[in-house]
């Protein structure tokens, strides 16, 4: 079972990488970019029947740091 966990910085948390990329896009002449935020995607290949609670626990215990990050789970 292919599953994706998308980890993003919480709103309000400064994202210096996003700021730098935003700056670079503007420098390349791309107008109209209001903001850039960078996150990460973790692709998991899970055994069939892995329960949702276990997956949620994986996110909370390791894949995301919930002090600064949000996560969401997408089943492929």
């Amino acid at each position: 079972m292919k599953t994706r966990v998308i980890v993003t910085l919480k709103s309000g948390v400064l994202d210096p990488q996003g700021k730098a990329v935003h700056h670079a896009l503007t420098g390349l002449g791309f107008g109209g970019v209001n903001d850039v935020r960078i996150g990460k995607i973790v692709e998991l290949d899970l055994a069939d029947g892995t329960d949702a609670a276990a997956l949620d626990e994986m996110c909370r215990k390791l894949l995301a740091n919930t002090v600064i990050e949000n996560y969401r789970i997408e089943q492929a």
Partner: protein
Amino acid sequence: MKSAVIVFPGSNCDRDLAVALRETTGADPVMVWHGETSLPDGIDIIGVPGGFSYGDYLRSGAMAARSPVMRAVADAAAKGVAVLGVCNGFQVLTETGLLPGALMRNAGLNFVCRDVELTVANAQTMFTARYDDAEAIKIPVAHHDGNYFADDATLDRLEGEGRVAFRYAGPVNGSARHIAGIVNDAGNVLGLMPHPERMIETSAHGRADGRRLFEGLIEALG
């Protein structure tokens, strides 16, 4: 006085920390590999060193925080053993939940490697007893992820409870409220980004401002 230094794959300040502990406690610390599930008996001070444990995979300190030895460190901390986390060690302690908040990418994106001026924010902790309140000291930093973040309520609580031990005297990495080091609520766990172990010998380092952290701690532990 018995001390231990935890060693992760990718630690690179473990030997500096060991030298500082040897010079100040008078005995070689026990070096404890990350796969160990227990610490030797009778340890008074645990050092969690700087470096790039597990190559900073996922997040700085994230993998190290889940290694077997950190459960033993957390148990020891709960029993009152002094824990000193420096740089990556601070990141590991926040990822473990022994200290609140998180250390994020430096606001300027650059790796910062230089001596910085710090202000002692609370000289009443067991780690700062040899300093004076508001004293200016100089300690080197060398990090990419030292930008301390916590929500406002947590920051207010840390400040209100005197748990900010050190602040940067000027801008370094974008850290919230210029926080460079904090202690846990019981006061026996300190995490700080600057490297006191790199400032212990005037002859070699030019100054010895970091040495008093170790000496004060040893005195406090009696």
